[in-house]
């Protein structure tokens, strides 16, 4: 899943450790989310969204599955 976490973090000039402290997770977790190696749970995603005063879909973006896209095109 793609996300804008690094950009949002840079806007408020926080380090990964700063954000990790605010979210109550480790710095490694923040790094794994930013690099797309780990998708956060729904509660953590909500916490991230609240921290940046955004909606979840403004931060996280999932590529649309091919099957769903073709179904919509047929409709």
């Amino acid at each position, binding site marked *: 899943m793609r996300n804008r976490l690094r950009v949002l973090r840079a806007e408020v000039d926080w380090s990964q*450790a700063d954000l990790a402290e605010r979210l*109550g*997770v*480790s710095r*490694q*977790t923040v*790094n*794994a989310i930013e690099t797309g*190696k*780990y998708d*956060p*749970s729904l509660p*953590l995603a909500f916490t991230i969204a609240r921290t940046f005063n955004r909606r979840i879909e403004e931060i996280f973006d999932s590529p649309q599955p091919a099957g769903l896209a073709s179904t919509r095109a047929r409709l």
Partner: protein
Amino acid sequence: MSEQKPNPDDTPIEPLYTHPASPFLRTESTAPARVDMPTPPAFQSTWVTYRAQIEFGLAMLAYLMVLVGSVTVLQANPGASWRYVVAVLPVAPAALTLWIFIRAISRMDELHKRIQMQAFGFSLGGTALLTFGYGFLEGVGMPHLSWTFILPLMAILWGVGAAIFTMRYR
């Protein structure tokens, strides 16, 4: 009446300018220089940072001490009626170690819990493969190994698995 200008030659000599590089004269800037220093990270004690590791290490130390004591006492009293009680005594610090371990895992964040779960899966699968493999080899003549090797094998594979899966999320 006009004001007479002072003769520049009569003014006192300012030592600051006449000896700018003198090591004997103290030169001070008019305003203190202000440099924005980065704020130091919040201090965290060793206990806070490594609490789980320290507790785990102490519990393991207690386990080893009770184990060595139990074995020593049993070797000295092989026929005593209370030998069964002494033989299972190391289980108590082992249970304490397990409790500390479970508590440490419950304190982890979701990524580290996932890493631990993957490492345990790796450890369980690896131990199953190795013990079954060696079991088949024992059937064709390899020497019999004690069951007590299984736990250290699981622990080693868990450590290896934890390292592998931690690297995966770096």
